[in-house]
C-alpha cells in the first residue's frame, strides 16, 4: 500500500505495516523539545505524580525565548529549569547564549531523518527540514510524555507542494513560503502534513529549505517535510547523535491535496499586518516608512541570511530614524558570521548586534517597538501585538528586503537601493 511520509513514519514508529489518515497511533518520540516553558511543564509533571522522567536522553531543553533573562522573574524561571535539568540528569541542555531551539536542535545533530520530534513550541515542524516528523503539542501533553514516554497522535492527511524550475535572482524560500500561505490561507493546511517536492526544492541549500517547514505552522500544518537527500546526509556526517534511517514517501502515495508552483513566477513577497496570510507582492507596499528592521529568528537568522543582508549593508549606513537589530539564530551562526566579516559590516552600518535567542520576535525584549511604530522583520508571525504592543505594525519579508529597508528607512526592494 502506497503511503505518504506521515502515514509511513507513524506506522513505523507504532510498529504497524501501514496507517491511514484519521487513525490514532501511540508514539514514543525520539526527541521531546521544550524551552523556557520547561518550568511550567515540570509543574504539571509533578501534579501528575511524576518524580523521574521516563527517559532523560529523549529530552532537548533550551533557554532561548527570553535569554539572557530580561527581568528577575525570567531569571527565576531559568533557575528552576537548570535545577530540573540537573536533578533529572538531562544532558541535552542548551543554556542562555547558545541560540534558538529549532536552529540548535538541527546544529547539534538531534533532528534526524526518520525520527519523531515532539515539541511544546508551535514552530517545532522546523525539524522537518532534516526529514523528521516534527509536530507541536501542548504543555500537559509534554508533561505526560515526560511521565510515561509516549503520546497519541492522529495520522494526518497529506498535502504535496511541488515547486519546479528556478527562482529569479534575489527570490528566496521566504518569498515562496509567503506566496503559498497567501494563496492557501492561514487554515490552508489545518492538521495536514505538508510535503515539499520538486527541482527548485532540491536545488535549495538546507538553510533555505528550513524556512519552509518552519513557516508551515502559519498555515495550520501539523508537520512539514522536505525529503532528505545527499545534502542532509553530508550535513549529518560526524554530527548525527544516533544512527538513522531515511523514511521517504512512496511515489504513488495518495495526497488529500496537491499544488504546483513554477519557481520562476515567484517575486519578492511581504506579509502585511496583522496576519501571515495577508501577503502582497513587495512592489505594492514599497515606500512604507519603517522604524525598525529586525534580522534574526528561527526562520531567517542563519549564516546565509546574514550574508544576504551583509551584501546589501556593506559600505552603507542604516537610515537616520530607523534601527537595525541583528540577532544570529545561534552561537555557531554568530561565530561563523564573525569570521566571515558580516558582524563588522553590521556594526559599521550602525546595527545593534545582540546575543543569540528569540529577542523581540514575540515581544520579550531586546528591540520591541514603540506604540505606533512599524517593524519589518524576517520572522514568521505578525499577529497584532506579537512584538509587544498591539499598537504597532509588523511586516514579514526576506533578509535582503529587511536589510534594504534598514538602509532606505522605508520598505524597499534591494534592487531599488
Amino acid at each position, binding site marked *: 500500500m502506497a503511503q505518504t511520509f506521515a502515514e509511513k513514519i507513524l506506522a513505523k514508529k507504532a510498529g504497524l505495516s501501514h496507517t491511514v489518515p*484519521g487513525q490514532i497511533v*501511540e508514539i514514543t518520540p525520539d526527541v521531546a523539545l521544550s524551552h523556557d516553558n520547561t518550568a511550567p511543564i515540570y509543574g504539571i509533571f509533578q501534579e*501528575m*505524580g511524576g518524580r523521574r522522567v521516563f527517559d532523560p536522553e529523549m529530552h532537548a531543553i533550551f533557554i532561548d525565548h527570553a535569554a539572557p533573562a530580561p527581568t528577575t522573574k525570567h531569571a527565576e524561571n531559568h533557575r528552576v529549569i537548570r535545577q530540573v535539568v540537573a536533578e533529572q540528569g538531562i544532558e541535552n541542555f542548551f543554556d542562555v547564549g547558545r541560540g534558538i531551539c529549532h536552529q540548535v536542535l538541527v546544529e547539534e545533530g538531534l533532528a534526524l531523518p526518520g525520527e519523531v520530534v515532539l515539541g511544546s513550541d508551535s514552530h517545532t515542524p522546523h525539524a522537518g527540514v532534516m526529514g523528521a516528523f516534527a509536530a507541536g503539542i501542548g504543555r500537559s501533553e509534554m508533561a505526560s510524555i515526560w511521565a510515561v514516554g509516549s503520546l497519541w497522535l492522529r495520522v494526518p492527511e497529506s498535502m504535496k507542494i511541488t515547486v519546479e524550475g528556478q527562482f529569479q535572482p534575489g527570490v528566496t524560500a521566504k518569498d515562496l513560503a509567503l506566496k503559498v500561505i497567501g494563496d492557501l490561507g492561514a487554515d490552508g493546511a489545518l492538521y495536514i502534513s505538508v510535503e515539499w517536492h520538486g527541482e527548485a526544492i532540491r536545488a535549495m541549500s538546507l538553510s533555505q529549505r528550513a524556512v519552509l517547514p518552519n513557516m508551515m505552522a502559519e498555515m495550520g500544518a501539523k508537520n512539514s517535510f522536505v525529503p532528505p537527500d545527499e545534502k542532509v546526509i553530508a550535513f549529518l556526517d560526524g554530527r548525527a547523535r544516533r544512527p538513522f534511517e531515511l523514511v521517504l514517501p512512496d511515489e504513488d502515495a495518495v495526497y488529500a491535496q496537491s499544488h504546483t508552483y513554477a519557481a520562476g513566477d515567484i517575486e519578492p513577497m511581504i506579509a502585511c499586518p496583522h496576519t501571515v496570510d495577508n501577503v502582497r507582492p513587495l512592489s505594492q507596499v514599497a515606500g512604507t516608512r519603517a522604524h525598525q528592521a529586525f534580522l534574526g529568528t528561527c526562520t531567517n537568522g542563519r549564516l546565509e541570511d546574514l550574508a544576504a543582508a551583509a551584501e546589501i549593508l556593506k559600505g552603507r549606513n542604516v537610515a537616520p530614524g530607523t534601527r537595525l537589530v541583528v540577532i544570529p539564530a545561534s552561537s555557531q551562526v554568530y561565530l561563523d558570521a564573525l569570521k566571515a566579516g558580516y558582524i563588522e559590516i553590521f556594526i559599521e552600518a550602525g546595527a545593534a548586534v545582540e546575543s543569540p535567542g528569540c529577542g523581540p520576535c514575540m515581544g520579550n525584549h531586546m528591540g520591541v517597538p514603540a506604540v505606533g511604530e512599524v517593524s519589518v522583520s524576517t520572522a514568521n508571525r505578525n499577529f497584532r501585538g506579537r512584538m509587544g504592543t498591539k499598537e504597532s505594525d509588523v511586516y514579514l519579508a526576506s533578509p535582503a528586503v529587511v536589510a534594504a529597508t534598514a538602509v532606505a528607512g522605508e520598505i524597499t526592494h534591494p534592487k531599488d537601493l
Partner: protein
Amino acid sequence: MSMIRGRVWKYGDNVNTDVIFPGKYTYTVSDPKEMPQYALEDLDPRFAKEMLPGDVIVGGTNWGCGSSREQAVMCLSEAKLGAIVAKSFARIYYRNCLNNALPALTCPEAVDAIQNGETIEIDLSAGEIRCAAGIFDFPPLPEAVMDIFEAGGLIEYTRQKLDADKRG
C-alpha cells in the same frame, strides 16, 4: 463507555470556539461545573437547556476552529456529551477533546447521512456509527486513547499510570 446512544444536534461548517463557549466567560468562569450552562450559547440557545448525557453533536468541516480555549471542550465533556462527529476538526480542538475524554470522530459520510434530532448509536471500540441511514465505519480508537477516556482525561490518566507503575 465504549457504547454511546443519544439524540443528534446537527450544525454546519466552521463552528468556532467563540460560539461554542463565548469569549466573555473565558476568564470569569473557571469551575468546570459551571461551564455546561453556557455551551453553544451563541449558536443554539436550546442546546444547554435540553441536551441530555449521551447526546451527540454532528458538525461540518473545521469544527472548533479559533482560539485554543479548553473550555470550549470542557463545557461539553462536563455535560457528558456522548461524542462529536464532524467532517473535520480544528487541530487543537481535536486534541483537547480526546485529552478531556470526549470522543471526537471524523466521518464525513456519516455527517451527510445523519438527520438532526434522530437517535444514533456509536460503538467506539468497533469503530461504527449506526443511524437511520445505515452503518458508517471510522478507524477504531486504539487502546491508549480508550484508556484516557476511562480515566477521565490525560492528566488523570497519566497520574493513574504512574501510580500503577509505582505499585507494580
